């Protein structure tokens, strides 16, 4: 799919060399695209806080890193975001599938969707919401911004975005 390619191209262009993932149905294409790139190491994680630990180590080891995960993971990772990523001022792009938005078939996903932006705002995490396929062209600038300011940055990608191409 074109969007998957544009997303991974932006990561590659910004010299991100290690990506950890915890899968989501909505992210299967982008994870498959990641697997095709020799320039990037893909480390599947069992839980998102573990993935953020790997990203922190990789960055301190000299490689730019990023995480791909679902918005439900915000609930899992608040302590890690605050006491590791933010406390040590580490940059971390988070490509997040925003489940529970328009087009969602699973009611339970809405329960976390209604808290997602409020939690990110409470944590002071710069947050971008991709709703239209054209929004993908901001990703390159968002990644540059992340490594400029040394913060975790959230890129929420909803069902309309992924289905819109």
């Amino acid at each position, binding site marked *: 799919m074109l969007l998957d390619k544009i997303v991974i191209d932006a990561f590659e262009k910004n010299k991100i*060399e*290690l990506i950890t993932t915890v899968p989501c149905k909505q992210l299967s294409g982008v994870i498959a695209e990641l697997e095709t790139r020799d320039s990037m*190491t893909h*480390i*599947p*994680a*069992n*839980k998102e*806080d*573990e*993935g*953020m*630990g*790997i*990203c*922190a*180590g*990789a*960055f*301190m*080891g*000299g*490689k730019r*890193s990023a995480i791909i995960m679902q918005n439900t993971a915000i609930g899992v990772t608040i*302590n*890690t975001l*605050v*006491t*590791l990523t933010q*406390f*040590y*001022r*580490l940059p971390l792009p988070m490509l997040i599938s925003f489940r529970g938005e328009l087009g969602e078939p699973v009611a339970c996903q809405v329960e976390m969707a209604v808290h997602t932006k409020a939690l990110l705002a409470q944590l002071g995490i710069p947050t971008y919401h991709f709703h239209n396929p054209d929004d993908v062209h901001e990703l390159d600038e968002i990644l540059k911004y992340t490594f400029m300011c040394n913060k975790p940055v959230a890129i929420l990608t909803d069902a309309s975005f992924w289905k819109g191409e």
Partner: protein
Amino acid sequence: MIRSEIIKNLVPVLSGQLVVCNIGLPSQEMHLFGDQPSNFYMLGTMGLSSSIGLGLALAQDKTVVAIDGDGSVLTNLGTLPTIANNVRDNFILLIIDNGSYGSTGDQPTYAGKKTSLAAVASACGCENVIECQADEAVSVVEKAIASKKMTIIICKCISGNIPVPVITLDPVVIRHRFMQAVEA
């Protein structure tokens, strides 16, 4: 022998190595006995010492020793399959297993009861898993570093703590000097 004695004994072996130090007393003990720029003191995020260590080992070629505890590994048990399936021969995970949550008042962990972390690590697919006693720690870690093989060490000891001061270094300073040591 208690954990602080193991850490004190390890200081010469870990001199100049990249060391990720576990949350709470293990970091404070390393800081007290053998502070060096190549120590990363993980002051929050219980459970992530091994994950940070693996990320470091994946990103560069210097040896990384991550010091963990039995309670912390139990908190992040998912780390062992990830380590087993992403082998990096510059990575050593040292789990100091005193069968208790030392930093919070020595409450017993399941690792001190029926659960064997060495057996768990092996079942997860880790290949070089060594269980040793406290008095063997120095020689086992020394050999693991020399072996250039990814090694998981479970070092058994008794529970107990000594008073140690908290770390007041700013986290950005810890990170900055650590990254300079990585690059050096």
